């Protein structure tokens, strides 16, 4: 008996994105909500009647009523597609109020996997959920799956949220899920949540990643997994489906003293139309002349409005200063003297890194002003 379902997690509905300003936070929030629709769409198109959300569906234990209600409404709208929601560490069972309200308000097609008990998904498949009881459970909550009894031949699907080995989103792996849980508990598939980028732990164990990215860390697009299992012992067939609307990218830009740095930058950056939905961090490294550097900065300034958000990080970029550059500031006189002094400080090993950085930036600024004045 086949069983098909969508595996997703870490919707983090209600996340506010306070580090941005303007319209961007609202757009990002909207995108997160829209992920629900996208997942449902994929489920319909792919013929997967069930969507498993492996935890962190809500960003906090006390989401705003709008977030909660509108999410449930959206989910309910897509009936008969079933949603199975597992408490994660952000929205653990410790949030008694949240879960009691969800229980009260949830539409029929939304199933809350609140108990560590087998849950029948269909005649062929049983879900073994391991809900997070506390924000930091401190133990392997999936252990019970080993001893869970099901009818022979049933497809056992595990649903858990947390770190595998020391491989956690938040960084400390006390409540580690055994990496071979799938084998030990005889699971056909173990659907994991917590890591926001999709990761394959082993053929039967996967992190789906978040359907809508929310940080630069992973560099993966927002996606969900379509899992198709033919039988209890068959290997699951896993297909990633794209669901994200915004893309968060860290772009590395290495400079080697070449003159077409700007052109290269253009190629690295996403194409024009995509920029609107892109959050980009451009990290420059290598070496560059003052001129190039100034040019880059101004190019980035120029390109900034295209993007939803862009940042140019040039801390790792070493500035090279040659005589010509300084000449551009002044050939002689006080200006030249000032430029020389600043350059000397940049390469002075006796000074702190901060001082050298400031001197470097001052020199760059001097160069820029000199250009402006000359113009």
């Amino acid at each position: 008996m086949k069983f098909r379902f969508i595996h997703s997690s870490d919707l983090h509905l209600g996340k506010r994105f306070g580090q941005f300003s303007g319209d961007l936070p609202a757009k990002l929030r909207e995108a997160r909500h829209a992920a629900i629709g996208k997942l449902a769409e994929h489920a319909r198109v792919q013929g997967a009647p069930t969507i498993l959300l492996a935890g962190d569906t809500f960003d906090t234990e006390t989401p705003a009523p709008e977030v909660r209600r509108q999410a449930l409404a959206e989910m309910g709208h897509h009936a008969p597609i079933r949603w199975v929601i597992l408490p994660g560490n952000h929205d653990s069972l410790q949030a008694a109020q949240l879960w009691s309200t969800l229980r009260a308000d949830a539409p029929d097609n939304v199933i809350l996997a609140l108990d560590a008990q087998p849950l029948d998904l269909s005649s062929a498949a049983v879900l073994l959920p391991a809900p997070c009881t506390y924000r930091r459970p401190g133990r392997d909550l999936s252990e019970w799956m080993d001893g869970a009894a099901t009818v022979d031949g049933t497809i056992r699907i595990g649903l858990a949220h947390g770190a595998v080995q020391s491989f956690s989103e938040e960084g400390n792996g006390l409540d580690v899920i055994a990496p071979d849980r799938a084998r030990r508990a005889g699971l056909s598939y173990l659907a994991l949540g917590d890591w926001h980028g999709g990761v394959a732990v082993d053929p039967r164990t996967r992190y789906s990643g978040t359907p809508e990215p929310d940080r630069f860390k992973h560099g993966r697009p927002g996606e969900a997994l379509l899992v198709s299992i033919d039988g209890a012992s068959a290997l699951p067939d896993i297909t990633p489906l794209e669901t994200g609307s915004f893309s968060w990218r860290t772009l590395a830009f290495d400079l080697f003293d070449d003159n077409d740095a700007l052109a290269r930058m253009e190629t690295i950056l996403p194409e024009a139309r995509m920029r609107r939905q892109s959050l980009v961090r451009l990290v420059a490294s290598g070496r560059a002349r003052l001129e190039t550097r100034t040019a880059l900065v101004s190019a980035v300034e120029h390109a900034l409005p295209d993007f939803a958000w862009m940042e140019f990080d040039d801390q790792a970029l070493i500035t090279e200063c040659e005589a010509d550059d300084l000449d551009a500031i002044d050939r002689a006189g006080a200006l030249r003297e000032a430029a020389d002094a600043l350059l000397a400080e940049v390469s002075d090993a006796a000074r702190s890194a901060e001082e050298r950085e400031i001197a470097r930036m001052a020199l760059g600024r001097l160069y820029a002003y000199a250009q402006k004045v000359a113009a």
Partner: protein
Amino acid sequence: MKISALRLFNVKRFAGRGVAVEDIGDGVNVLCAANEFGKSTSFEALHALFFQSHSGTPGPVQALRPYSGGNPMVEADIATESGRFRLTKQFYGGRSARVTDIATGHLVAQADQAENFITGLVRGGTTGPAGLLWVRQGVTGIEKRSKSEDESETKVRTSLLQSVQGEVEAVTGGRRMSEIMGATEEALASLVTPTGKTKAGERYATSVEERDRLEAEAHRLDGEVKTLRETLDRRAAAAKRLSELDRAEDRDERQRAIETAQATFDAAKRQGETLRAAEAELRLVKEQRDNADRALRDFRNAMARAADLKPKLDNAKRRRLEALANRDTVSAAAAKAHADFEASEEMEQEARTLLARLDSALRAREAAERLADLEKKLDAAENVRKQIEDDEAALALVKLPEKAVSELEALDVEIAKLTAVAEAGRPSVAIAYEPQAAAVSLDGKPLTHGEARSYDGQAVMEIPGIGVVTLRSSRPAGGDERFRQSEERRRLLLASMGVDDLAAARGRQVEAQRIEGDLRERRARLPLFAPDGLPKLREDVAAYRAATGEVLELKGDPAQIRATHEVAQANRLAARQAWREAGPLQEGAADAVVSAETAFAGLETEWSQVEAEIGPEAARVEREGQMAMRFAELDARLVEQHLVVAQLQEGTADLTSAEATLRRVLSVAEAADREIGRLREEIAGLTAEIRARSEDAVEEKWRESLDALAAARTRVAGYEREVAVLQRLRSALQTARGHARETYLLPVMNELRPLLGLLFDDASITFDEKTLLPHKIVRMGLEEDVDRLSGGMREQLSVLTRLAFARLLAKDGRPAPVILDDALVYSDDDRIEKMFDALHRQAREQQIIVFSCRQRAFQKLGGNVLHMSDWSPDR
């Protein structure tokens, strides 16, 4: 650069005319002309040529225009390193600028290019400047100027600073440096105040405020989130406990426990009651038995006592009678004794009376005898007393004060002495008779042979047959006071004593003594008669007389009477004794009676009591029997009842412990209910709180604020860094510029020093670094602010400074002319001469052009004299 000629046309007062100043050579050139001649006009035109664009019409250009209008034109011939050029500019209509090479006559530049060429001459760009150093009348550039003045000055470029600025700036970075500095300062100003604090209202300050606000917000929200989580935890705990407490089986168990305990308790209570009843019954029976026992015993005791009492009673009765009899006897005896006593006493009394009479008769007789005796004595005594009195009287008459006699004696002696002395002192006369000589008398008293007789005062000596000799002495008669006094005293004394002289006195004395002797004798005799004194004796006599009132007669024999009395007395004593003895006997008998009576009475009372108790004799035995029976009955019943009670006691459960159990169980149930109620309330309360908070989406806001805070911090850090960068840049620029200035300033100072030396002794100047203007001048050790200098000094100073700069420039290979337009108006003649010296000294390598109206003064300057001549541009 050197200027060799200057020409103007249609400028200011030269409307429609042209003037030229030709042949301006090296060194000092002087143009002296009267006022209104056009010197300043030339100055301004020259200035405009170099500093104003031909195409514009700003103030200075407008000022060039004459009232009648038209197009002003200015031309100058200059010589630079690259050759000699003619610069021509026309303003307003037909505006143009041309630079022509004088040698070839070719046009080197026109319009904007010409402007650039000219600008290049004065501003210099980045390579070599060749500026003009201007000093205008009264404008030395050292005074404080108002901003508008400064601005206008800037345009005209006549202040020291501005005129030198080109040179200075070329070395110190130039306009570009100022602009870059300006840009930096501007950028900094938009972030921080001059002291380095964030500027209110600007981006930096705003983002700092934002960050602080977010920090506070995040902190606050953090607190709220914590509270919310705590509340959730508390509620979870309460719910857990509630579920534990509220289990059905526990509740049932509690209920059952209560029922059991209650039943046990009730049963125990009932049993207790039964037991108490039995116990009461027991007590009653016991009481009754004891009473019966007691009654029986009392009865038996009473009977015994009755038996005991009887003989005693009889005994007592008998003794009572005996005692009474005894008493009667004793009384009789006592009465008799008493009668005896009384009789004897009577007899004794009689005897005594007799005796008394006898005694008194005897006594009376005695008294009479004594009285006679005393009377005799009294007489005698009286006599003696009388004698004594007589004697005393006589004595009084005769007595002389003791001392008086001796005094009189002494006085006599003294008088005799005095007389003798007087006599001795007196003149005396003695006569020794011749045989048969008649007796001579002195004062009527014949003098005897050889007798010396004295005389006082005057004496008359009669010498019979001769005559009378009057003898006079110088001594006054009777002059001796003392003698007179003594005489007087003697006289008085004699008078008082009542005698005539000493002999009489003595005689009296003897008499007195005799009488005294008699008196003594008589006085001695008195006591013989009256030993106690006379008055006492008189008393005694009187007393005795009284005593002897009656003389009694004696009857009977005294001895006999006495004997009778004695006998009677003895009888009396004996009778009294006997009577006395009878008393106590009587008393004793009475006591015996009393005690016998008492004993009897007591016994009788007891007897009647006992009889009452035991009742009539006949029924006694029966009664006793009855009592004994009753007692036996009751005793048996008591034993019975004891058994019953013992039985009951065994079966009874402990009531108190049952009660305690019941209470405990009830309280447990109560406590559980209370706890359940409390927990329910707590949970309800917490739920309400949680719901309220959850609606607020506190956690979401918190996370949002944390994100925003991180971003704000980054921004603030960015601004901080920006400020640091700008400050670093600024300091680098300032350092470089300052350094350059110093490099430049020092040489200027060096140039200026000798020039100053020309004018002032022992003076040095410090320059303000920023404005390069002289700042302070130190003269003879005293520092003065340059502002405080007099106008003349300032003038001179500014001229010298320009000369110094000019020299520096010349040394650098960029010579510039110094133009002074009426620049020494305030200086006195002496100073002016010194200035002239300075000018000439400089002029060796320098072109100096001087405009002045003070022809005479400037005559002394010498130099190349310039003239203004007519000119027309057609040439």
